[in-house]
């Protein structure tokens, strides 16, 4: 292909856009609409993911120590725990800390504990262990359980189980939903382009009769598709960012137990995926739709 011909085909692509205003508008709006919906789901998935991560980091095991253990040994045990596989963070609670914490927990009823001093209270010393990943909780717990210095060990099995199950379900569900939506988006948009092509089937067949090669006919459509995809992607990004921004400012950064992901963090993945989908869909939609009509 001569460069001059490519220039011509590019110009044709732009001309098509101008010539078929209704169709162009329809196709661009379809792309925007589909991408917008896709974006909403993407935002939901991001936020679920973020929340799951936050919750994960809150899973902890509490190890209550036997009263007869010496302070030196306690320090050694702390080191030991920190070195364990899957352990994120270890924090120590002395008898005094424990009493203070309980008083706080009881609030107004805290007076009930007045009789105890910081040293003589019956509450045990303990380590809280933050676990990197909820799936490792059980392993870490069973590893500690049998140690001689352990009085008792506590972790919310149910919560761990639930979080484990729910986050993985959510993650899978989110991925499945995003895939379904990506396919649906591609489908809707390529349908739109297909209809646009159908309404120009006469034009395509005439080009064939005049002796145009398949690629000569295809190029302007492909370029047109790509241009529409890019335009749609940019507008959709603007729209979804505007939407999310107003949501953030309303919800004040959090909603229920969900910590909302800040807008800077979602911008890049959204505009990139939008552009990718827009362009791919635009081009594929055109190429696939034309194929049938090239066989003249």
């Amino acid at each position: 292909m001569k460069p001059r011909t490519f220039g011509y085909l590019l110009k044709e692509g732009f001309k098509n856009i101008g010539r078929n205003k209704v169709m162009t508008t329809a196709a661009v709006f379809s792309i925007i609409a589909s991408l917008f919906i896709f974006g909403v789901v993407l935002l939901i998935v991001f936020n679920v993911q973020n929340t799951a991560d936050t919750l994960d980091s809150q899973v902890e095991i509490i190890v209550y120590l036997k009263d007869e253990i010496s302070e030196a040994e306690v320090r050694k045990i702390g080191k030991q725990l920190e070195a364990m596989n899957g352990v994120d963070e270890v924090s120590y609670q002395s008898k005094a800390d424990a009493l203070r914490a309980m008083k706080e927990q009881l609030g107004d009823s805290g007076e009930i504990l007045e009789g105890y001093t910081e040293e003589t209270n019956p509450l045990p010393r303990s380590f809280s262990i933050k676990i990197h990943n909820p799936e490792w909780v059980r392993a870490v717990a069973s590893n500690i359980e049998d140690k001689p210095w352990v009085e008792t060990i506590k972790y919310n099995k149910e919560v761990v189980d639930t979080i484990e199950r729910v986050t993985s379900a959510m993650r899978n569900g989110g991925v499945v939903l995003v895939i379904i939506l990506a396919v649906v988006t591609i489908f809707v948009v390529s349908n739109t382009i297909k209809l646009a092509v159908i309404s120009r089937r006469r034009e395509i067949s005439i080009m064939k009769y005049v002796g145009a090669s398949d690629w000569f006919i295809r190029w302007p459509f492909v370029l047109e598709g790509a241009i529409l995809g890019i335009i749609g992607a940019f507008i959709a990004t603007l729209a979804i960012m505007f939407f999310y921004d107003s949501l953030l400012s309303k919800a004040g950064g959090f909603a229920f137990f969900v910590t909302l992901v800040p807008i800077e963090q979602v911008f890049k993945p959204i505009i990139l995926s939008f552009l990718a989908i827009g362009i791919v869909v635009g081009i594929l939609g055109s190429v696939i739709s034309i194929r049938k009509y090239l066989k003249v």
Partner: protein
Amino acid sequence: MIEFINLTKTYPNGLTALSNINLKIEKGEFVFIVGASGAGKSTLIKLILREIVPTSGTILVKGKNLAKMKRREIPLLRRNIGVVFQDFRLLNERTVYENVAFAMEVVEASRKEIRRQVPMVLSLVGLSSKAKMLPSQLSGGEQQRVALARAIVNNPSILIADEPTGNLDPDTAWEIIGLLNEINCRGTTVIMATHARDIVNSLRKRVVTFDRGVIVNDRQRGEYPDEA
């Protein structure tokens, strides 16, 4: 140039439009294809353009067997053949100028050539003043002349015209025929399907007569047959 050997075309619905045709057209000839409505004239033309493939038999165009032609060779075949279609087949969304220029863009002509050639051809068919109009803004005869302009703009070695004067008044029709004759004199093979008795009779060129799918008459310096 073009040769049909034992050619039969039966459409998918069972209708045999051409049966066992043998016909040879030499380079530089001017051939009238005549016959009643439905005799198979347009079918013959569609076969030459490889718009349709024969059911049996062979068509050779410039030595190539069209039945065995690969898909991607078809555009090259068509670029050698200028065609005025019976139903014009103009691009509705392009102006007259663009319709003609398009045929040159397809063969990757240079911008300069296009700028020179297109206005020349348009003035040849008498449509210089309509260059910026869309086909829907033209009269039937004007559309037909645009189709002719498009067909000749690339100086094809074969020019096929299916009823190129059907929508023209006698004067304009004669002008067009004069044009075709001139193009033919410059060496282009011209094949014209027509019902215009006057024209056939006064030009005295080769006339091939079809009747219900078979050639009933083929003579040099022929006349429009009197079947009535």
